[in-house]
């Protein structure tokens, strides 16, 4: 294959179209996670004070910021309140699919500025969800399951059944890269068999993160070591998800390997492992929105037609059970 043919295939790949369901579900979940995080700060007495200059808040970044207007923001309760409100309203707009583009971009701008004011308050999940919001802003993730689609329907317009696939594919790659990069940056020998794979037992015993009283993992040994190995296998092997997905959809293109992948359901095994990892984190550690934010991106790993098929099965199953429960 020459360079011209390669380029044509590259253009064709990013020009594909698909149903809007996967992106729409990810939009709803991502927007909801962010909304509840920002709303929770208010109910916990942290918004908007958190971003104000010390001692009222933790916004120490404003005083050392190179931009004049950021320094000013940090000392103004009104401006900080407005940024928090913008992040809250933006995440709500994203979740319900109302004015998606301005809502997502407002949320990106507000969270980036708030992050400058209080740099320690930002974790990896905040950065990742900001990237996701940028891509969602450029997508048609509001084409279904949204206020925008309801409005279009009331205006008598036909429902949108096909949207550009590139935002989902790009975010699919982003999620794979997050896992792969996390494994590449694991410098500690404790994550590897040479170090006894004791990393998770240690992390679960750190009193700043542990949900349960540290020490409970000792009774489960060697389960935490097995979990550490599985975490590393999962993260290092994350690029395999691309291969598994391709093999799942077009097994004939990969010959015997493709058939084995499909028969063993390796793609679903990988996705199940990832979901279990995050559910395990949610259960055993206090990491805030991290596990939920990551799980919110999992619909992006599922093709819209698979999601539609799953929903149809679910509707049939619930229909059957309600029919069975109905008297007479």
């Amino acid at each position, binding site marked *: 294959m020459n360079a011209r043919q390669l380029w044509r295939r590259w253009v064709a790949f990013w020009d594909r179209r698909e149903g809007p369901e996967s992106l729409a579900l990810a939009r709803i979940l991502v927007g909801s996670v962010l909304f509840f995080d920002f709303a929770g700060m208010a109910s916990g007495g942290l918004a908007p004070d958190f971003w104000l200059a010390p001692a009222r808040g933790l916004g120490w970044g404003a005083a050392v910021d190179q931009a004049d207007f950021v320094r000013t923001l940090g000392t103004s309760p009104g401006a900080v309140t407005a940024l928090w409100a913008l992040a809250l309203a933006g995440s709500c707009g994203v979740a319900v699919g109302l004015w998606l583009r301005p809502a997502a971009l407002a949320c990106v701008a507000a969270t980036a500025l708030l992050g*400058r004011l209080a740099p320690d*308050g930002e974790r990896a999940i905040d950065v990742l969800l900001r990237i996701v919001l940028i891509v969602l802003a450029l997508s048609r993730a509001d084409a279904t399951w949204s206020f925008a689609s309801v409005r279009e329907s009331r205006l008598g317009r036909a429902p949108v059944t096909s949207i550009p696939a590139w935002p989902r594919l790009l975010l699919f790659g982003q999620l794979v890269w997050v896992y792969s990069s*996390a494994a590449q940056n694991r410098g500690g020998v404790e994550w590897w068999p040479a170090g006894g794979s004791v990393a998770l037992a*240690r992390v*679960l*015993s750190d*009193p700043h993160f542990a949900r349960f009283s540290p020490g*409970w*993992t000792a009774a489960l040994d060697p389960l935490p070591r097995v979990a550490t190995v599985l975490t590393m296998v999962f993260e290092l092997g994350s690029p395999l998800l691309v291969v598994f997905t391709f093999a799942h959809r077009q097994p004939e293109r990969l010959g015997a390997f493709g058939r084995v992948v499909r028969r063993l359901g390796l793609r679903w095994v990988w996705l199940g492992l990832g979901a279990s990892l995050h559910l395990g984190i949610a259960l055993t550690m206090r990491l*805030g929105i991290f596990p939920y934010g990551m799980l919110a991106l999992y619909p992006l790993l599922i093709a819209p037609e698979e999601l539609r098929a799953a929903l149809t099965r679910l509707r049939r199953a619930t229909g059957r059970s309600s029919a069975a429960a109905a008297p007479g």
Partner: protein
Amino acid sequence: MRAEARAALIALVLAVGLVDGLPLPSAERAAGFAPWLAAPAEVASRVQAAVLSPFGFVFDWLRLTERWVLFAGASTRRFRLEIAARGNSSQAWQLLYRADDERHRFLAELIEYRRVRGAFNPRTQEPPPGYDAFVAFIARRVLSERPELRDVRVRMERIRIDDAGGYTRTGVYAHERVKRREDVLP
């Protein structure tokens, strides 16, 4: 947008993201390498910085990165936050909050919120840059809710995490700070 333009833009975004995400060692870490390894690491870092320089403003303003560091190390030498207060300098310190201590949970929900934890939880043996801001912030909150108190002390007990799980207290404290009422409240 034309399909070709979009594909080109995506290729550029992916390339820039991958260069930013390269797991290159920091200058301090590379300095500890053998010379034959340190030199290529330094060159690679310089090339990375040069390639990224036209896009630096995007990463800076939107606070983005493609280098994902999630629990990079799980050291055995960790810390346990402790917050105490007293009414005056002749009184003993009264423990209000201690991590993993069910009997001392004053303001626990606030302290354990993920964004607040980021301001005190040390990733290395040093506290994060916002630690002093955290001390002032929490002292203000404590003294606002407990008008009878005058001083707040924040410190970290050094602990040693056991490989099988659990930890051993050392009784040695680090990063101790004391704030008086007049320091944090008008």
